[in-house]
């Protein structure tokens, strides 16, 4: 399968880059220091129609291809990783609706999400159920035409600022998370819902990561996505697509750090020469640039497979996220090195980028989970039989 970037892709990149350089980059340090959600930039992205790229046109979206969505995230993350999470999470939270929702459910929620009037968050992780999604505890009990939700979620990006949540809860606890979990759409003004706490984080500090509590939250049965018991499947189908956004975010962070390091070393003089004239520095810059490009091309290749509906799509999206996340970490660390002492202080953006890069190795599946997904598909392709699960194991995924 091949892909080519088109003039439309170039135009989108130019549009987002101009916006990011003029309006977002100048805010990045302040967002990081204050750890406040950038409502102004959310409004800006909404005004420019950049929060509706994954929604169909009939519901007010722009239905861009996945490479375009990657370019959007990449260019935002090049300026500020926190701001790039606004469209990332809008898509992540909406994917369960777009994948498993009925036409009525899609029509009910998509317009307000595509326009950016409402923010949506994806509420899957629990305190004791991170990578091991199947050990979720939160419950949803049918009561007449409603479900009553009880329990809590943790590490929910935008959980405290969202108007809408896609929530995963057990409708059949005896069947466990894999078979007994269902997906729901919950409006956050529903009584019994609260976001009592946000985490203090190392990076992406302007993006609130919230703890959510559900205390007898009544949700109409019409808000269930798919059938009872399909929650795990919906969550995995969502993550198989959404983790590509994280790959794009990692590429953008790496590009931002490479650009910053190049600009700095071209100005900075030591021993009577520009730092960039030292061959050792040029080799580092060459490695940073080429690795970033490799991550970018793998991300676009995976994006083309998402749009083609390729059966091995998870192999590609996990590979892109694994490679791009590790490259972002390496490249930003090298950028700090190239700026020397100035790289370690907040006067320059690279220390923030290094802190932001770390999360791309952790969320939407740790790098270790990505390797499990890649290896499983690798073994399947090669016809290697799966090992039978041993008794009591809960960590075999899917």
């Amino acid at each position: 399968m091949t892909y080519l970037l088109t003039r439309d892709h170039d135009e989108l990149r130019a549009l987002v880059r101009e916006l990011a350089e003029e309006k977002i980059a100048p805010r990045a340090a302040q967002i990081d220091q204050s750890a406040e959600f950038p409502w102004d930039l959310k409004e800006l992205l909404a005004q420019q129609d950049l929060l509706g790229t994954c929604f169909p046109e009939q519901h007010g979206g722009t239905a861009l291809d996945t490479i375009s969505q990657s370019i959007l995230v990449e260019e935002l993350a090049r300026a500020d990783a926190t701001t790039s999470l606004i469209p990332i999470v809008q898509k992540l939270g909406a994917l369960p609706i777009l994948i498993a929702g009925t036409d009525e459910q899609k029509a009910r929620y998509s317009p307000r999400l595509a326009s950016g009037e409402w923010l949506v968050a994806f509420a899957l992780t629990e305190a004791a159920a991170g990578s091991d999604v199947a050990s979720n505890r939160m419950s949803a009990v049918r009561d007449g035409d409603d479900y009553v939700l009880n329990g809590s979620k943790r590490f929910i990006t935008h959980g405290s600022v969202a108007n809408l949540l896609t929530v995963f809860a057990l409708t059949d606890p005896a069947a466990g998370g894999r078979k007994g979990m269902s997906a729901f759409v919950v409006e956050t003004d529903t009584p019994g819902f609260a976001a009592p706490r946000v985490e203090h984080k190392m990076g992406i500090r302007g993006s609130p990561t919230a703890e959510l509590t559900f205390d007898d939250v009544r949700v109409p049965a019409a808000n269930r996505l798919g059938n009872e018991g399909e929650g795990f499947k919906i969550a995995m189908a969502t993550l198989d697509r959404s983790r590509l956004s994280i790959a794009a975010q990692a590429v953008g962070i790496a590009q931002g750090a490479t650009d910053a390091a190049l600009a700095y070393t071209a100005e900075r003089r030591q021993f009577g020469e520009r730092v960039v004239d030292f061959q050792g520095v040029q080799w580092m810059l060459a490695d940073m640039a080429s690795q970033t490009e490799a991550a970018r091309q793998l991300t676009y290749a995976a994006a083309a497979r998402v749009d083609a509906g390729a059966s091995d799509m998870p192999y590609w999206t996990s590979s892109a996220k694994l490679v791009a996340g590790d490259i972002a970490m390496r490249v930003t660390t090298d950028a700090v090195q190239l700026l020397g002492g100035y790289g370690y202080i907040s006067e320059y953006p690279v220390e923030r980028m290094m802190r932001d890069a770390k999360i791309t190795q952790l969320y939407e599946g740790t790098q270790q989970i990505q390797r499990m997904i890649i290896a499983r598909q690798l073994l399947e392709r090669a016809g290697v039989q799966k090992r039978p699960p041993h008794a009591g194991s809960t960590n075999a995924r899917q």
Partner: protein
Amino acid sequence: MKIVVCIKQVPVTGAEKRYTDDLRLDRAGAEAIINPLDEYAIEQALRLVDSGAADSVTYLSMGPEQAAEALRRALAMGGDDAVLITDPALAGADEWATALVLAAALDKLAPDVALMGMASDDARGSLVPGAVAAKRGLPLLSYGAELTLAEGAARIRRLSATGFDWIEAPLPVVATVTDQVGEPRYASLKGIMAAKRKTLESWSLADLGIDPASLRGAALTRVTDSRPPEQKPPTERIENMAAAEAATRIADWLAARKLI
């Protein structure tokens, strides 16, 4: 109420300019943008549509075929349609020829307001708006910090040495606005997508009924020389020394030049 915004495609501000042998700007391969001062005219026109004071915005440009990119970009910001006047006989046009051609196109489009930026970023003649108004026998409202429309008249607010002047003229008018208008909007994603479907016509001199011979080579003036400003000698710095010594050095420097 119909507005035509005249825009010019220019090289990126600050870009190194190359010239052809006859000292025309070499546009081949140069990165081009909408003249930044024209973006304020676009913004003013779109604000008048947003507020309901105007109904439609047409963009008009004269230039080589690649100037269509500038018109598409303007259409992505808003507005309805665009016209590009392009003709081999217009290469190297000066302000006089440009004004003649734009005036003929505006006669055909018949807007209530022909709106322009206050100057172009590359040539900086600032003559075209006045020449167009004169050619068409219409009032010129120039250097507006704001343009408003009401009851068959257009009015500008112009920054003066002591405050603002308000100047009014009956429609139709030619008007220019300054960067006081307000920050030009960014093109939105839907704007870019919609711009691809908007009409962009291309007119030749024949379409305007202009005989190329009447344009006398498209220029009455010609550029005879072009060079960057001469480099200034490096600044001498007197710093990091005691005040008395610094004062002596400054006095010596001035005395050496017979300034004291």
